[in-house]
């Protein structure tokens, strides 16, 4: 024993310690390569349809002209089979129209009638204002539009209408006199204010979910966002026909023609000054006083979901309950392999135990209770520009959501020797930042959605 202890010369101890550290460092470099090579779980399958790219290129010349136009222009949102489940659909609010139901919100026919060809033509030519449905009149010819209407109609499980439905007769507008506005105001309070609120601002937060799809209530003071047009006759038509299958009911029978004109006049009178006109102010949902509602708007319009939601191999987001539940693997050489965090308020695996201020601090300053966020991965250096209120709004919305279990492993880092060597070799200028040359976003889930006591198939090292 004494001999062994005597053999521990200081030099040998130094050499042995350095060797051990070297082996460990090499191990880290190796493990960073194999540790998160494959996702721990496949993407949670949801019924979104993949498609070939560029859209329509794979079509045979024997396909009908309607199908060719549809698959080139429409399928990306409405899906190859018309079910409203195209690859871009999961992020859209509300979801794209499902053509198999055969119902269209913006139409001029009686509430229980199909939309007319002219209604569909109008929507295709001019689009739906302020929404993802674009105008096509400069790109598609009249013949192409006619063909695609036929093709869309054929998706309906209820069959195409036997004859083209007849539009409602738009009665003569009641003049917008003080008396008409007073009558309209009373009717609005009785029939409309429950969803649109008395001031017409509506509720930015989705009022109702249809098939779990959020359907926002329109802000009636901003006619530039009216999908179906902002003329008094357009408003009269929406009140008359309703907006099935959305939550807006029809008032065809409940109110007389004149009463509907009174309401249309009243809605017109609610209009605020547009922000681009003299004395106008920006008052959109990004300025909502309710921080949860403002946060919901900001999160959906920003890119949060892009990295914090799993994708499948066709780069379709998981639009189901795993929205914002993290799990995307992002290797950033020579720094490490990062996995996007679970942003749902799950206490154990998400941000449930973080305070709203801590979340806002992480978004703006890249500092979490555990670590610094790596800024090639989480672009907090750009999000630092967010106002304090907007960051708190995003945090408040995240905290208000339903918690989802998705255990996210900690980042894996390359060995110190390799990282420093790579930074010296590939960086120009001082200090060597080691800017990655590429960012890779991997499909599948690198987290673990199963409960904790289940067998852990992934890799959890910290």
């Amino acid at each position, binding site marked *: 024993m004494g001999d062994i*202890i*005597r053999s521990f*010369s*200081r030099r*040998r*101890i130094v050499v*042995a*310690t350095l060797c*051990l550290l070297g082996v460990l460092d090499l191990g*880290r470099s190796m493990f960073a390569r194999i540790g998160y090579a494959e996702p721990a779980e496949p993407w949670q399958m949801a019924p979104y349809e993949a498609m070939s*790219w560029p859209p329509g290129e794979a079509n045979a010349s024997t396909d009908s002209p309607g199908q060719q136009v549809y698959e080139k222009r429409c399928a*990306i949102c409405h899906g190859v089979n018309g079910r409203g489940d195209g*690859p871009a659909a999961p*992020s*859209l609010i509300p979801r794209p129209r499902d053509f198999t139901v055969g119902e269209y919100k913006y139409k001029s026919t009686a509430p229980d009638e199909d939309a007319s060809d002219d209604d569909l033509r109008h929507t295709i030519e001019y*689009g739906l*204002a*302020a*929404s*993802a449905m*674009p105008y096509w009149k*400069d*790109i598609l010819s009249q013949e192409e539009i006619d063909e695609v209407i036929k093709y869309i109609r054929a998706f309906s499980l209820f069959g195409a209408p036997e004859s083209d439905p007849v539009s409602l007769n738009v009665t003569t507008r009641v003049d917008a006199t003080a008396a008409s506005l007073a009558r309209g105001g009373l009717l609005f309070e009785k029939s409309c204010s429950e969803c649109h609120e008395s001031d017409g601002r509506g509720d930015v937060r989705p009022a109702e979910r249809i098939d779990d799809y959020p359907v926002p209530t329109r802000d009636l003071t*901003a006619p530039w966002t009216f999908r179906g047009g902002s003329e008094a006759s357009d408003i009269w038509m929406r009140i008359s026909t309703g907006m099935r299958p959305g939550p807006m009911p029809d008032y065809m029978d409940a109110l007389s023609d004149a009463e509907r004109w009174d309401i249309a006049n009243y809605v017109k009178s609610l209009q605020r000054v547009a*922000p*681009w006109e003299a*004395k106008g*102010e*920006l008052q*959109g949902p*990004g300025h909502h006083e309710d921080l949860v509602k403002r946060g919901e*708007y900001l999160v*959906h*319009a*920003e*890119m949060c979901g*892009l990295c914090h939601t799993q*994708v499948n191999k066709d*780069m379709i987001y998981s639009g189901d309950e795993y929205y914002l539940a993290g799990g995307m693997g992002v290797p950033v050489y020579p720094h490490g392999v990062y996995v996007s965090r679970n942003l749902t308020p799950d206490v154990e695996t998400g941000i449930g135990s973080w305070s709203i201020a801590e979340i806002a601090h992480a978004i703006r*300053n890249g500092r979490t209770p555990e670590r*610094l966020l*790596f*800024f090639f991965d989480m672009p907090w*250096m*750009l999000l*630092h*520009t967010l106002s304090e209120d*907007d960051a708190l709004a995003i945090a408040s919305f995240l905290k208000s959501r339903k918690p989802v279990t998705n255990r996210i492993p900690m980042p894996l880092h390359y060995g*110190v020797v390799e990282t*420093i060597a790579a930074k*010296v070799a590939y960086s120009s200028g001082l200090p*060597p*930042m080691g*800017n990655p*040359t*590429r*960012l*890779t*976003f991997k499909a599948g889930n690198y987290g673990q959605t199963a409960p904790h006591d289940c067998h852990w198939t992934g890799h959890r*090292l910290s």
Partner: protein
Amino acid sequence: MINSQWGILAIGILSYFLLGRSGLARPGDSQRRKGPKKWILISLSWIGLMLVSFLGWVMYHTPDLAFIPPEEIANGASFGIPPVDESKLETPELAAMAHRGRYLFTVTSCAFCHGNDGSGGPKVSMQSFGSLWVRNITPDSETGIGEWQDVEIARAIRSGVSKTGNVLHWQGMIWDHLSNLDEEDVRSIIVYLRNMPPIRNTVPDPTPPSPADCPEYTFFLVEDDTPGCNL
């Protein structure tokens, strides 16, 4: 296990001072380390070791350095996002919209892909959509979007349809997310885009999917005009 370096280091240092002493009795040691020179050498080597360790630590952790205030890093990162030129805007309302547009340009991450000056360039490659290059969205009339109408820019932002009718891949230009932007915010972004200084930068046209493209979604941070996954 993977983070046990501190344990190993601690054991090493401990044994150096505790166990190492018993190995001291070697002839010549005491003579070699006599005199003031010994202390200078030892101090210098310790200072050198600490300096090298500190430099290594800084290099390893760059750019995630906790002692740099986040404001400094953020200012560095958003440096070059053009300020609003109010002299080009006719009304105070349009100026307010341009400021809102610049804010959204920064935080909805337009700048992240299109660059702080909006001139585009980076390549994105994946086998399911081919190679594409981030477009130049400055108001340059030939290489940017100077000739586009407002409704055409809005359509590209919200629906991924370009002026000529090309379909933009939702994973390249994230129009599916941006379609949730309110009309006021889309118009604000457009006011700001028109307010930016035009930059002449021709960006390659997208190429259709090919086996040479990356098997996984890859965003290139270095300039590369060749289609496919190679650098």
